[in-house]
């Protein structure tokens, strides 16, 4: 049987851990996971369906770097 104090500490620790996880997930979602997921999908498509099929790339005219 656990003491009430121990139970309280365990609950507090779990609550803090959960909060940290939620905050970390939110931060990562905000700052990169979605971008990273999209990037990986695009990269995989390029490697498998474009480069993988031997399609050549030719430098395009009329474009610029975007801020």
């Amino acid at each position, binding site marked *: 049987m656990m003491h009430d104090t121990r139970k309280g500490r365990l609950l507090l620790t779990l609550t803090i851990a959960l909060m940290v996880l939620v905050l970390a997930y939110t931060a990562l979602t905000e700052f990169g996971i979605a*971008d990273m997921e*999209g*990037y990986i999908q*695009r*990269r995989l*498509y*390029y490697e498998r*369906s*474009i480069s993988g*099929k031997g*399609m*050549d*790339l*030719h*430098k*395009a*005219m*009329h*474009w*610029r*770097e*975007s*801020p």
Partner: protein
Amino acid sequence: MGKKVQCDLCPTECVLEEYQVGGCRTRINKGGVLYSLVYGKPCAVAIDPIEKKPFFHFLPATRAFSIATAGCVLGCKFCQNWQISQAAPENTDTKTLLPDDVVRQAVFYGCRSITYTYTEPTVFYEYMYDTAVIARGRGIRNTMHSCGYIKERPLRGLCRYLDAADVDLKAFTEDFYSRICGGRLRPVLDSLVVLRAAGVWTEITNLLIPTLNDDMAKIREMCVWIVKNLGAGVPLHFSRFFPHYRLKDLPPTPVQTLTDARATAMEAGLQFVYIGNLRSDAENTPCPGCGRVIIERAGYEVKQNHLRGDACRFCGTKIPGVWN
């Protein structure tokens, strides 16, 4: 991850992340550099009568070496070549035909011109441009059939090597371009003005679709705009619609609608108004001076040509066009 790039070729102005492909399906950002996926990779190569493009005032009865790659800058629901225009190049059967080879083959098959057509040539701009430069050097003319959805700077660059353009003016409302094509009307009108000002021979095609763009008041408005901004001598081809792609629920254009549109255009002041996708006398070119038929056509075939130089053989009236 690399830098984003912005494509400046068509008015859509796609901003692309690393490894992202543009809306046209033919341009990709790799490492912060924009690349074409279709250079030297046509999915359609054919030799056609120039009348098929349609050009009725440009080197009649000659052959045009015609090429296209996959992709398009628009997504018209009525597209007649949607199998290639709405396809990604990696999912299309292509062959390798570099600009040199295109010109060499055009010469070999006795073609007077190369036409960039079937899909939207803007999407293979670099391929078209390089081919056009070589063709010009070999005395082969360059023509394109385009939707005109291209930005001014690339169009002006191309105009230096372009001899003729047939532009699809799909309707005369922004609503039609937005709902049916996924684009805008204004840039197309701007392109027509640029082409004309640059001295590129220009003809216009308008596909008449029942209930969507067959309002005679709008057709009249369009024709008045053409007369005012491009001139009365610009040939206009009204083309008959047949159900295709995502507009299979509409009937073919009634013949009466086409003849009414032609009458409306001529009342608005246009001198050369044709009807396409339908066999009729409206395939012929009458002389605006004496009214006699100077070029008689049956489909894509020229039956009689009564031009002497660039003038009517009967009355001497000059007929606008590129005749030799």
